[in-house]
């Protein structure tokens, strides 16, 4: 990856993170921790991978993206705004009665949102259905999804894992946001879903484990997944919950809490400083 491409991506991700903070601060509720941890992969997907067009968001041949961990909707709305699907002004109305930006993604009313989600475990199955629909109709679009590590406790994830391998859905690529924390604590304490890699491998998937904040690794993983034939791909991303905002990093208390004014200002200042540092 060229230095300028990486810089562009880092700036985009920082903007996505600022959007996330603004949404959750404006709503005074929402889920910042797991939104911040997927800002990099969403930035890469929407900037470099997905064949999508904000002028034609329902193009039947477009690539699809499913945010199975739907509570991190702030990240999805942020990247949709940064990509031109929805106006940035809408972000401040997140979770309010006069906005279509629901607490969890609503595909019916949000341009660019490919699947309603929020009830954990359902999104991966829907993504598998899209991938099967593509194969069945001889279309070449790809389906990408992001699941949480806590979400892996849902039995339906493994139903979908079995199904996707059975139907050889090599047009499906799932990212696991392995930040190690869920709402009640560490995943290894609440319900240990590890080893994640061995489980997916046993289900017949192509498995990659990467640093989910390293764009070079994300790029390599996506390219490898695209070239895999006959099996679905999972990219297990080691991430930091709350990434980019110092006081939120690795703190489970920021799973579903909004910053106060002082915290919001501090978080925004940190992210702005990170962007400025890129230009120095």
């Amino acid at each position, binding site marked *: 990856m060229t230095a300028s491409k990486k810089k562009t991506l880092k700036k985009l991700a920082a903007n996505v993170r600022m959007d996330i903070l603004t949404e959750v601060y404006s709503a005074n509720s929402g889920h910042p921790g797991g939104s911040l941890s997927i800002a990099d992969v969403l930035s890469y997907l929407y900037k470099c991978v997905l064949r999508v067009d904000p002028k034609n968001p329902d193009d039947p041949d477009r690539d699809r993206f499913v945010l199975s961990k739907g509570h991190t909707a702030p990240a999805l709305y942020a990247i949709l705004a940064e990509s031109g699907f929805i106006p940035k002004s809408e972000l401040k109305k997140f979770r309010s009665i006069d906005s279509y930006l629901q607490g969890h993604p609503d*595909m019916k009313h949000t341009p660019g949102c490919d699947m309603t989600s929020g009830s954990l475990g359902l999104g991966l199955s829907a993504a598998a259905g899209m991938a099967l*629909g593509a194969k069945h109709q001889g279309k070449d679009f790809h389906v990408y999804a992001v699941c949480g590590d806590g979400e892996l406790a849902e039995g339906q994830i493994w139903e979908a894992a079995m*199904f996707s391998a*059975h139907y050889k859905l090599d047009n499906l690529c799932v990212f696991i946001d392995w930040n190690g924390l869920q709402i009640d604590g560490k995943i290894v304490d609440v319900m240990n879903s590890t080893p994640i890699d061995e489980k997916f491998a046993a289900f017949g998937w192509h498995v990659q484990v990467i640093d989910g904040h390293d764009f070079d690794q994300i790029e390599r993983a996506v390219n490898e997944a695209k070239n895999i034939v006959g099996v679905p791909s999972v990219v297990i991303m080691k991430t930091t919950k709350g990434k980019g905002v110092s006081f939120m990093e690795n703190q489970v208390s920021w799973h579903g809490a909004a910053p106060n004014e002082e915290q919001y200002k501090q978080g925004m200042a940190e992210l702005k400083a990170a962007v400025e540092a890129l230009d120095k």
Partner: protein
Amino acid sequence: MSDKKATREAYGEALAEFGAKYKNLVVLDADLAGATKTVTFKKAFPDRHFDCGIAEGNMVSVAAGLSTTGLIPFASSFAMFLAGRAFEQIRNSIGYPHLNVKLGATHGGITVGEDGATHQCLEDFSVMRTIPGMTVICPADAVEARAAVEAAIKYVGPVYLRFGRAATPVLFDKDDYKFEIGKGIVMADGKDVTIVANGFMVAPALEAKELLKAEGIDAAVIDMHTIKPIDAELLYKYVKKTGAIVTAEEHNIIGGLGSAVCEAICEKMPVPVLRVGVEDQFGRSGKVQPLLEYYGLTPKNIAEKCKAAIKLKK
């Protein structure tokens, strides 16, 4: 009423028949293709039938995803494992985004028979009709089942269709039968009381009419194949005409057709409504006829309820 055929048989045949006409129709099953009769479609269109294994929740959400790519998926299993097991997937993956998925639920009600209570779904009308935007249909015979399948294909949006395991009399003539979602069918006119039935209970309702006729009572019979949206206008017409209603369904009397009829009538022109159905109990093993008698799903009980309803008239 000479021929008998299970509505699930008609369902499988209709999928195969309409599969030729509607190329984007695909069928999902959860290891019950032989029982739900989607196997008939599978034989005709093997590459459009996807077995999902014994994982109904995944099947329903997969169907949601398939529908977003322009296909019309019919997801099939027993009513218990669709409306019951996969309720939340139906609500959140299909109902909330109002996706174009059809749910073909067979083995509804107690006429499942020997398999017993775990497999006898008596709650599906209730839970399905509480999902906003969901259409809920339970055809009375094989002719109506076939027509309901095509109507569901043509309609854009989620539809729950309930079919039965047991053979039931063929009531309609295929050549002149017309099905319209949300429009009940007057099977027999009458002036003293109206029996509103669906599914397996339409034939016993017609028999009840004959029992009542012998006692000088003139009962109307309506086949209310669509539970949601309920045909309120037809109900009001017969409330005015007969002043008393008896509902008959193979479902818990709580939440199903009887409840839907009560809701419509109470809000506009309240009259006595008595409900024939399973009276808030679980099913049990047995052959079909003894089960129907055990739970009072008989022409005789419908007729008794009609007489009681007439007595309640002001």
